[in-house]
């Protein structure tokens, strides 16, 4: 079986969960002997030597880069800004024009290459998937990592983006949603029938997180406890609820330090909010972190909090658990469907959030039980399990689409 995949940059060049997901899934597919033809917009470039580090068997994966300024993670205010303004690059096109131009290049690729199924990740590549299907007649699967409603927090949904998402999903043969939470959104906001949507939860491969440096233990002298927010500081991630919960916690226990790792359009607003609440001394903004730096922060933290307003999946809690911090996650997240050993809260219930944060920082026995159990649980949430579901779904789609048996390679 050969998959034509329209994906996004891999770590460490990515700036969000989409690249991590594309990488984890592709590697797991390759390990299951699936050929992947991986198409991505050229920005950083993918060298052959880098690929041989990432993949044990590079023969399974072939990369095709397309000249394009598209990048996957632009969100909420920043997203809206970039989405609507003229991108000042060599092409001078709008984002939507660029998406269409990318789709035309995809058409050329689909003409030249042979494959059995098309798999496209998130809306920026959906038109590429649609064009590839038009040319090849092969089944098209769209992978929804986030909808326009998640990215904007439901405020200011862009009609053009919505139309592309909806039209593509209607045209596609099947849709993969990263959670039931996302599946429900697709049904509710896009009118797609439930039977057309398959849920495949993301995974994590713990071997990617070996040898995490313990470089921040200094922060914890004097018995100070550390509570972490890590993610884009945008409306989707709920940073303001984190700050408000921090205020409540500090009223009870002043010996807690709140770390905010990330950047985003609400960063300044959050700093002002912390100052306004009089808790600036206990809230540290450490900027955008990745790789070992981020892992070191996870490891130092006593608790990782993900107060997302709307989180289709959310891989960061899984990373945090592997690195050494138990998690408090919003119920409005996909990851809460696969993680039972986590504290859970409604993102808006900052009193409940503070109550649970105080529980963890006050009782070592709670920390120990929560982290120990979640660490075991995460071992079962793998990309291999996700890839297995994808392969089964490909097989189903190839049959459903009336592809003649002689070209089936299963």
């Amino acid at each position, binding site marked *: 079986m050969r998959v034509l995949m329209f994906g996004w940059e891999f770590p460490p060049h990515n700036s969000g969960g989409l690249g991590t997901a594309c990488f984890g899934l592709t590697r797991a597919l390759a390990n299951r002997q699936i050929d992947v033809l991986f198409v991505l917009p050229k920005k950083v470039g993918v060298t052959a030597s880098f690929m041989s580090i990432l993949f044990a068997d590079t023969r399974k994966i072939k990369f095709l880069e397309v000249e394009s300024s598209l990048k996957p993670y632009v969100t909420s205010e920043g997203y809206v800004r970039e989405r609507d303004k003229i991108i000042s690059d060599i092409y001078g096109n709008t984002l939507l024009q660029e998406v269409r131009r990318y789709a035309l290049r995809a058409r050329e690729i689909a003409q030249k290459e042979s494959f059995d199924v098309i798999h496209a990740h998130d809306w920026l590549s959906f038109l590429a998937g649609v064009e590839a299907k038009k040319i090849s007649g092969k089944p098209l699967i769209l992978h929804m990592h986030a909808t326009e409603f998640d990215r904007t927090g439901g405020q200011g949904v862009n009609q053009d983006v919505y139309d592309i998402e909806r039209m593509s999903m209607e045209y596609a043969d099947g849709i993969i949603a990263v959670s039931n939470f996302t599946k429900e959104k697709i049904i509710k906001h896009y009118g797609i029938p439930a039977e057309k949507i398959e849920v495949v939860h993301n995974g994590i491969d713990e071997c990617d997180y070996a040898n995490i440096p313990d470089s921040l233990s200094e922060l914890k002298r004097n018995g100070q406890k550390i509570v972490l927010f890590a993610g884009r500081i945008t409306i989707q991630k709920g940073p303001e609820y984190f700050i408000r919960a921090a205020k409540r916690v500090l009223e009870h226990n002043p010996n807690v330090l709140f770390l905010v790792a990330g950047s985003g359009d609400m960063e300044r607003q959050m700093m002002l909010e912390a100052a306004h609440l009089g808790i600036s001394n206990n809230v540290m903004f450490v900027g955008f972190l990745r790789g070992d730096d981020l892992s070191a922060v996870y490891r130092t933290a006593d608790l990782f909090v993900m107060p997302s307003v709307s989180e289709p999946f959310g891989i960061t809690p899984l990373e945090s658990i592997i690195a050494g911090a138990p998690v408090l996650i919003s119920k409005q997240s996909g990851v809460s469907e696969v993680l039972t050993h986590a504290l859970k809260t409604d993102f808006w219930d900052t*009193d409940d959030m503070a*109550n649970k944060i105080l529980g963890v920082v006050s009782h*070592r026995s*709670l920390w120990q*039980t*929560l982290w120990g159990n979640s660490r075991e649980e995460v071992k079962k949430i793998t990309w291999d399990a996700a890839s297995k579901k994808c392969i089964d779904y490909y097989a189903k789609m190839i049959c459903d689409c009336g592809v003649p048996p002689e070209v089936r390679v299963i």
Partner: protein
Amino acid sequence: MASICFYFQVHQPFRVKDYRVFDVGRDSEYFNDDSERSINNKKILHKVAGKCYLPANAVMLELLNKHPEFKISFSFSGVFLDQLEEFSPETLESFQKLVATGRAEVLEETYYHSLSFLYSPEEFRRQVAMHREKIQKLFGVTPTVFRNTELIYNNALAHEVEKMGYKGIIAEGADHVLGWRSPNFLYKPQGTKNIKLLLKNYRLSDDIAFRFSSKEWADFPLTAPKFAEWASQVNGNGQIINLFMDYETFGEHQWEDTGIFNFLRHLPEEIYKHPDNDFVTPSEAIARYEPVAELDVHNYMSWADVERDLSAWLSNAMQHDAIQSIYSMEGEVLATDDARLIEDWRKLQTSDHFYYMCTKWFNDGDVHKYFNPYNTPYEAFIAYMNALQDMKLRIHNYRAPELDDIKPKKVAVHHIS
């Protein structure tokens, strides 16, 4: 002769509400949830009374009236009786009617359905004495057979209970303790003289309690004739079949539409079809049969989970932390002589609180999750520990009118002669 000995555990804890750290020092009502959640004690009691206690008691009364030799026994926790008095007096009355027949024996246990024997023998004796007083007051009878919380048992407990004057004690017929031996005889706890041990026949008990409505079970559906047939097979190689289970089996764990009440309604007549069979209460069994051997149970066993040990209440760090915290307060709490405070402290000793914190099988969505009214074991722990925080504050703030009056509260410990 095979004697059927029915014993039903009837217990409901006072569940702790979603008690937040911000409530500490402001609200000392830990058990008064009034939401739609299943930590609303009044709501749960009404639900179970409607589905189980009232209809099951009606069937039992019908059977006692119809069969003059039919007998059963109950172990009511004190906290359950408290809740009946407060929320459902009619249910209490229906139990009183059963006991008044003289053929529904009442067993002794700790008032608070606690693990006190493991942590404070003095507190254990006080809670047993409180239970006896309560049973005498509500039912006019004095129990002579003891049953510890969730059938938690070992040699030391048997010695203690013998010293307190009880004639019999009830425990699980766990394989790891019995080995090749049969639960269908009476035993003598190791090193005791005057106390006899009744062991649960867990296969036949669980056929009713757990497997009754299981369609995957090879013997489904279970009918009264079939069960009576199995029971009669004990004739010749056993004297007594101890069928011990939660009373909530009837109508709550096995819903009415499974046919559980009809099964119960027909069971005595089917049992009597075999002329060698009859029904006994635990104290009758003790009067009638002699122990066949001494049984050595050094480590604690219980009737919980496949392990039949203490791990349902005491396996993770949270559970140990919580239980050690509550018992470490004993001296200070009793020194206050504040009845409300002492009662709250005791209500927080009920074993269910620690059961809710169990993470052992949490992954698999099994029985622990089914019986857990909290979203996660972690939430159960947080609410509990916050309540303890408030208790500490109450102890700290307690001021006796005169210092000379502060004496540990004494509860009389009576011995049965």
